[in-house]
């Protein structure tokens, strides 16, 4: 009822107006009939009825939903006011949007990487079995998720009692397709119970069962993820012909997993799953599987851990890696434990834990800054509006109504800020995931809008607005209108006390900005250090080619000869300046360590002649390897200066010998040192320069049907790659070929530093800008309020410079106090960032000074404008105006 009236309230208003007129007419006529004069009759009628407009208003109120109407009015008024000061609106809304958006985006990422449960039924039941304290990098550790070896997994499965279902899985890349057009796919190998234990139903076909893992390697069945099925198999229904060639072996696709299931590694979505298979010989030293399961009803994690610990001695005795004599005792002392795994596993978690929390802290500070800024702007406006409030009170507005209107303004600001903030969050989330990804490691995360965080951020902003904007203005309504009007109009100098809160807020802003700016400078400089660090070897123009020649059917004793032949072919490609094989690509994480002498150890790399030339590493002494260093010639080595110092005791190295300690397949060997190279970085740009030994590739005990080549070319990477690919494909079309650009891989390894530099730099600049805007606002406001006083000073002969100086001194004080507090805060909280910095101290004085200087420049600019305005004041105008 009320709603139909609500929309017809204008019609009813006219209706009632006519009706009231009729009433007046009738009354007037009756009065005249009683003998009154016409004029008098009309007046009497009017007196009796009262004010028709008031009656109409009352009826109008019955019809309308008053709160809705006034809300609409307040909002309209708010929009008009914001339109009147677009600068204020722009700064307030932009800073709110960025603050809210940044917080939401980073929290969403943190949530996706760290906190969210896996999309499977009852994820909280999932438990992972790990060696307590990890395996101390023993043996071979191929992936980020490997915790146990397959023999250990078999033993656990046989002896455990804690789990109602238990499964193992291993992560790795496979190559799919024909040799000429290979595509890398991220794959998991799983035990037969994997999907059943996780409770993942098939989307198409069937998923694996325990009997699928009994076949000999390689596995001939595969299950693909929904997105792989959609993208590479066009979502066609599966039949006997649904085949893929996985690592060269024909494989039947028997099923598709449901959309949303990405495996157990957050950020590393699997594309292809294959069942475990039975290898000819089960290796005891490869830690590549992760074992997980669901506990039996009534079992807790501590109870499961106790049970696992009890069966550990038997398990580790049965699976001992007997070849590692030194480590065997340690291995047998390993203990298993149970750990919650409801949110899966993720290498992102270890790599990005500190950065993400740090970024969350940074974005929290940015939100704080945005709120402080808003508070400052609102307060400046609130005092400026005291007069407006007074006038409106004097005209009869109720205080409640004024308060409601101030609330509406806040609501409007925060609502627009929040809406933009949500958009910023979506955008930033995407940028973040993109920034985490590299060509070689694409990160796929389902980032969901987290409404709780958004609500929190918006709530903080709204509260700030109300506390600092509406409340002071409302307090102003309590003073008698006449006083307020007088003070605002005829004020002389306003007392210092009035601005103390605003000054304090500026100090807070400067301090927080300093913290953010120092952080930003440190991260940017750290990134730069990493980009320009001298690794001791050539990075530009280097390509890495991996060639697999298993299909070429070369006999084992001719592997080395075949590698040499391939190298010659590569060197014949136009533009190629040098090429050599290596067993370990430097700077990209690979590690090959062997014991030397009684206690020493050194990195070992087997390289072909020409490696040092290709990598731009000069020989300081002695000779490079050559064709005379063969499998049967005496073992020789080229070592770096660290090796000479640490292993050989600094003596003249050429002609000295060093003996390696035995390892599986690597018998103890006596090497004669024939050359010395300078120290270079080893497997990480951020790392040390350890002792290194290089030995001839021809003497490598484990030559396989593949070659990893470092290639130096003066041509463009793309043309070098096609050139080499074409040459190899012409003579050996069966060879698997992969080519990557060294420098690009190195850059990909700096993603974390890049991300920190990018985001902290952006937020730091934003913070400095906000501080500048805040200072500008407050100083201009103070100048405006002191116009009278300044006018008098100018009239009494103050020079322009003196007035500017007076205003600038005011700003300088605020800046100095803010900088001091900021510096102290940085010294207290900055340590967290330390672990993420490369060749930089957290308390780096240069960065601190730089940040302070930048803030000082911004502050000077921000206060110079209002100061100049003050000094140009015409005293006559200033004095007459008030």
């Amino acid at each position: 009822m009320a709603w139909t009236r609500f929309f017809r309230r204008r019609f009813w208003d006219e209706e009632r107006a006519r009706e009231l007129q009729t009433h007046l007419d009738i009354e007037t006529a009756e009065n005249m009939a009683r003998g009154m004069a016409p004029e008098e009759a009309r007046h009497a009628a009017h007196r009796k009825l009262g004010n028709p407009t008031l009656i109409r208003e009352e009826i109008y109120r019955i019809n309308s939903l008053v709160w809705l109407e006034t809300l609409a009015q307040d909002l309209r008024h708010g929009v008009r006011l914001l339109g009147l000061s677009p600068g204020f609106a722009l700064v307030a809304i932009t800073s709110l949007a960025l603050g809210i958006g940044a917080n939401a985006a980073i929290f969403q990422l943190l949530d996706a990487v760290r906190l969210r449960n896996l999309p499977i039924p009852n994820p909280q039941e999932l438990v992972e079995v790990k060696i307590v304290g990890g395996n101390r990098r023993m043996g071979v550790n191929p992936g980020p998720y490997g915790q146990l070896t397959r023999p250990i997994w078999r033993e656990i499965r046989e002896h455990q009692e804690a789990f109602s279902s238990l499964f193992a899985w291993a992560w790795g890349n496979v190559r799919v397709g024909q040799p000429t057009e290979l595509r890398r796919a991220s794959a998991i190998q799983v035990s037969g119970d994997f999907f059943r234990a996780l409770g993942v139903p098939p989307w198409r076909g069937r998923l694996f069962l325990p009997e699928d893992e009994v076949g000999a390697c390689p596995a001939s069945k595969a299950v693909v993820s929904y997105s792989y099925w959609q993208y590479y198999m066009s979502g066609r229904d599966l039949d006997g012909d649904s085949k893929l060639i996985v690592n060269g072996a024909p494989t039947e696709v028997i099923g598709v997993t449901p959309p949303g299931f990405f495996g157990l590694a957050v950020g590393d979505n699997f594309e292809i799953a294959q069942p475990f298979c039975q290898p000819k010989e089960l290796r005891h030293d490869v830690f590549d599987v992760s074992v997980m399961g669901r506990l039996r009803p009534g079992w807790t994690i501590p109870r499961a851990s106790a049970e696992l610990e009890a069966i550990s001695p038997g398990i580790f005795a049965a699976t001992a890696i007997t070849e590692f004599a030194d480590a065997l005792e340690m291995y047998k002392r390993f203990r298993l434990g149970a750990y919650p795994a409801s949110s899966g596993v993720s290498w992102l978690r270890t790599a990005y834990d500190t950065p993400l929390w740090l970024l969350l802290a940074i974005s929290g500070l940015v939100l704080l800054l945005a709120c402080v800024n808003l508070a400052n702007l609102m307060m400046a406006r609130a005092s400026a509006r005291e007069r407006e409030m007074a006038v409106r009170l004097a005209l009869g507005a109720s205080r409640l109504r004024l308060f409601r209107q101030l609330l509406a303004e806040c609501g409007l600001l925060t609502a627009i800020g929040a809406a933009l903030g949500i958009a910023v969050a979506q955008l930033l989330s995407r940028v973040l995931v993109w920034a985490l990804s590299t060509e070689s490691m694409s990160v796929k995360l389902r980032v969901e809008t987290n409404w709780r965080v958004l609500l929190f951020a918006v709530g903080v902003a709204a509260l700030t607005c109300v506390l600092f904007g509406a409340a002071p203005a409302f307090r102003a309504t309590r003073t008698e209108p006449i006083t307020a009007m007088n003070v605002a109009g005829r004020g002389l100098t306003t007392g210092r006390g009035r601005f103390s809160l605003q000054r304090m807020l500026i100090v807070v802003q400067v301090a927080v900005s300093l913290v953010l700016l120092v952080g930003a400078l440190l991260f940017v400089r750290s990134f730069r250090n990493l980009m320009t660090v001298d690794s001791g070897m050539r990075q530009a123009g280097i390509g890495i080619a991996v060639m697999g020649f298993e299909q070429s059917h070369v006999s084992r004793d001719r592997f080395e000869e075949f590698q040499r032949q391939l190298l010659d072919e590569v060197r014949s490609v136009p533009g190629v300046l040098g090429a050599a094989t290596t067993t370990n690509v430097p700077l990209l994480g690979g590690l090959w360590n062997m014991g030397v002498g009684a206690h020493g150890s050194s990195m070992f790399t087997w390289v072909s002649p020409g490696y040092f030339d290709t990598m731009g590493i000069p020989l300081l002494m002695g000779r490079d390897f050559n064709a005379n260093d063969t499998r049967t010639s005496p073992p020789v080595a080229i070592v770096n200066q660290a090796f000479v110092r640490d292993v050989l005791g600094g003596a003249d190295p050429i002609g000295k010998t060093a003996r390696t300690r035995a390892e599986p397949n690597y018998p103890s060997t006596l090497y004669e040192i024939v050359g010395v190279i300078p120290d270079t970085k080893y497997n990480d740009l951020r790392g040390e320069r350890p002792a290194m030994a290089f030995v001839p590739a021809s003497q490598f005990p484990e030559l396989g049907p593949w070659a990893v080549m470092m290639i130096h070319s003066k041509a463009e990477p793309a043309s070098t790659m096609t050139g080499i690919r074409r040459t190899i494909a012409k003579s050996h079309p069966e060879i698997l070929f992969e080519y990557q650009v060294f420098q690009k891989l190195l850059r990909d390894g700096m993603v974390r530093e890049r991300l920190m530099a990018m985001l902290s730099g952006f937020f730091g600049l934003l913070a400095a800008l906000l501080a500048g805007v805040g200072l500008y606002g407050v100083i201009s406001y103070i100048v405006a309020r002191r116009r009278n006083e300044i006018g008098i000073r100018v009239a009494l002969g103050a020079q322009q410079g003196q007035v500017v100086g007076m205003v600038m001194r005011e700003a300088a004080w605020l800046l100095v106090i803010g900088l001091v507090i900021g510096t102290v805060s940085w010294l207290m909280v900055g340590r967290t960032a330390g672990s993420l910095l490369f060749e930089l101290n957290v308390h780096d004085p240069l960065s601190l000074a730089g940040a302070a200087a930048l803030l000082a420049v911004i502050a000077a600019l921000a206060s110079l404008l209002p100061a100049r305005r003050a000094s140009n004041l015409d005293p006559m105008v200033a004095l007459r105006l008030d």
Partner: protein
Amino acid sequence: LDGEMLQGTLDLLILQTLALGPAHGHTIASVIERRSEEVLQVEHGSLYPALHRLEDRGWVSSFWGTSENNRKARFYRLTPPGRRQLATRASRWDEIVRAINRVLRPAGE
């Protein structure tokens, strides 16, 4: 008597007046005044909002008609729900009056 009650009383008086037949605002006011022997003075200012409210609730309906001295006027008429409302309110009023009387003039006096 508080405002709410007064308003309720005015509603009751209007409904009772309309029970006699359709009437326009001015007539309603004069009828109430005449029948109360000029004791109850209807404030014309509150008459029209009251009529509007009653119409809003569906107890009266209105139409434009011609008054006794040939003027266009808005007439009000009781609707069936209005008639039921009048009965309930009238008996409630009687109860209240009796109750107040019992308080003012106790039987023992």
